[in-house]
């Protein structure tokens, strides 16, 4: 059970990391190829420290890995945590689709009742 809690914390961290549009954009950029902090900072009009902060959040969430070359330490995307998120969301999609099918049916019964009253 302790392991489950740790994994759950990890997932919360993933969601927290994904909650920011700049960080999502950084991940989108890294989906193309690995990049250095300088390269990542360029399109966002952000200071290097600001970008570094976002990268640290993404690194803690396990969404990116950093190379060991001391000077550049390029960032690369790690998609594993995203897969856990996708599993959660995909399970819920079916639940919601079924709910809205029922909403549709229920709305039809309400409309029928109204039509009958009108007659």
């Amino acid at each position, binding site marked *: *059970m*302790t392991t*489950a*809690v740790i*994994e*759950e*914390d990890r*997932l*919360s*961290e*993933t*969601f*927290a*990391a*994904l*909650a*920011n549009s700049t960080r*999502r*954009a950084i*991940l*989108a950029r890294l*989906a193309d190829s690995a990049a250095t902090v300088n390269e990542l900072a360029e399109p966002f009009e952000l200071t290097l420290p600001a970008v570094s902060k976002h990268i640290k959040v993404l690194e803690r969430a396990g969404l990116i890995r950093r190379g060991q070359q001391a000077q550049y330490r390029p960032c690369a995307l790690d*998609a594993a945590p*995203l897969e*856990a*998120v*996708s*599993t*959660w*969301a*995909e*399970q*819920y*999609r079916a*639940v*919601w*689709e*079924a*709910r*809205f099918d*029922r*909403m*549709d*049916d*229920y*709305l039809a019964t*309400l*409309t029928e009742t109204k039509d009958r009253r009108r007659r």
Partner: protein
Amino acid sequence: MTNSNGAQDAVVIERSFDAPVELIWQMWTDPTHFAAWYGPDGATIPVAKLEVRVGGTRLVCVEMQTPGGPMQMWFTGEYREVVENERLVYTESMSDENGTVRTPSELGMSEGHPVTTEVHVDLVDLGGRTRMVMTHVGIPGDSPGAAGWAMAIDKLASYVQTHADR
């Protein structure tokens, strides 16, 4: 949803209903209407307390019949945005019957489920018909109220750890 970074981090469903926007709004906000469609097939919603105002709480019970007797699941949350006939945003967590949040793993669910999620409902009046976009996301960590949720989750984590050996 597949967003710009190729990740699926939310459920987004768009539907059009052959009903006026006021009625679709009631589907979400009127306990009787809500109970009529929300539960899975064969389930009932014996409790739906919906305090539809910003900061208002919700408490929903889903009851399913099993061979071992009725099984209840409780969900609680808070309304974040309420714009009548246009937009509804609320949070959702699994809970007990008093609305105390319980983690999915405590309840034996898969570990991939976030403790708190947020449901967004956007309605567009199409003149007698309604387009609805429902978004269900894991709660963003840096949104207002996240600190409170994080504290609740921390408390639960330590609670679960102390009780893990039982």
